[in-house]
């Protein structure tokens, strides 16, 4: 990764809002590799991201921030590793209304190093909805694994909520955390 750019990865299961979140802050509409969703039992939407989403924020002096969204399905796990390589930080988006939301949280947080390789911020959608898991269940789940990560209730359709996740990630990046870098 060049000194004039860094990479933020948005990850999480299908339907959690990764593409929406990137679109909220990218300079241009994200480049998506959506295909027909053949797994509508897992999440009922017509298309899903099979490869990746890509957005970009240009900064002064030719620098840029690259925004990558991973595919949500476990069978594309190999792409998570590729996209997560050299990431400055990771935003995990989880839909609290999905039945296996806690298992998904475990899978995505673990896949990106549990915050030890790069800071992780977790955004939980629909946690206030009837039948959805409360936000506390996600924080508690991480704590049971010894992790104290930021876990916020968000609606990524609201730009302010996406900015909150990004700003938190930047605050964590500003910590010159020797333990993280040597992990």
């Amino acid at each position, binding site marked *: 990764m060049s000194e004039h750019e860094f990479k933020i990865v948005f990850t999480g299961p299908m339907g959690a809002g990764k593409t929406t979140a990137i679109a909220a802050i990218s300079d241009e509409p994200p480049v998506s590799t959506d295909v027909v969703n053949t797994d509508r039992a897992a999440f009922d939407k017509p298309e899903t991201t099979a490869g990746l989403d890509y957005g970009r924020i240009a900064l*002064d002096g030719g*620098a840029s*921030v690259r925004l990558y969204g991973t595919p949500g399905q476990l069978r594309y796990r190999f792409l998570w590793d590729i996209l997560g390589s050299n990431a400055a930080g990771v935003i995990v988006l989880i839909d609290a209304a999905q039945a296996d939301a806690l298992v998904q949280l475990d899978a995505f947080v673990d896949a990106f190093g549990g915050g030890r390789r790069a800071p992780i911020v977790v955004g939980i959608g629909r946690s206030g909805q009837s039948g959805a898991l409360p936000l506390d269940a996600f924080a508690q789940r991480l704590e049971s694994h010894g992790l104290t990560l930021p876990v916020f209730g968000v609606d990524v359709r609201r730009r302010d909520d996406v900015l*909150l996740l990004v*700003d*938190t990630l930047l605050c964590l990046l*500003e*910590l010159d955390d020797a333990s993280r870098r040597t992990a």
Partner: protein
Amino acid sequence: MLKILDGRGGLSWALAPPDQADVLIAGTHGDDLVARHWAKTDKPLIAVYEASAARPLTPYTLHHPFRVMQLLGVLEDVDQALGDTLHDAARTPRAESIRIGSAGIDFAESLRLLARSSAGGNLHAAGDAATRVYVRDDLSVYYAGAETARRLTREALPLAALRLTADTPPPGFVCRPVLELAWFTGWHAADTLAPWVDRGATHRLRRWPDFGLLRGTRNQLALAALLTHASYSRARLVEVSRQPAANVDRFLNACALSGVLASTGDAARGAEGAGAFIANSAARFGGLIRGLRARLGLTT
């Protein structure tokens, strides 16, 4: 269970009747007389709560069912707090600039005591007709008029201590998470350390407050990032964060009242972390972070 703990902590744990105990492990439901008495003390309470319940606003909690290692983790924290307290009887007194007796502080203190009590399914209320606030004693939600709910996020309302009430919230009152009430009550309580924060301790966050709900500011995010990575005394936190002392104090007040702050040890005895963190944009990605914030309109 106590046999498992034997030899692991700085203190020896033994079962004791409540009037002789240093720590109470209690469920958060059921109007328990022991828990009610305990609430009036400053002794640690480990609140056990079920999956469907809101997390108690106390520093030490266990989510039932819990693993032995989770209990050990909580007891280690209590152990540290108790050990330092017992070791150093001449501990630095708490903040003296604020006294219980002013309306806002009384309300905050009553909320803090409610968080240490078992729930009986009752409502507690404070405020006059214009600022009436009802709080469920399981600390899941509070009820207030829409304007009152808005005001308490922006200013300290002149609320007296919460009292048990048989009234019910009038129609039209909004129902909000009690974390919001606790956070903003703590934040607006004072611009110096509140009586419920130990001035001589080192502090760390047991978990992040839900800033999605609370709309955390940059300064609050930065303080939370620091305090989830290491323990800091109040003075060291002011130094490392480069924020005004009043800001830091308000943050600690809010975190403590929201039950996310763990205060242990004695800062004067060097219990705080090494402080290997630099809270400025020159640390790792330098100008990229500043540039990104500027582009996204993320000003302080």
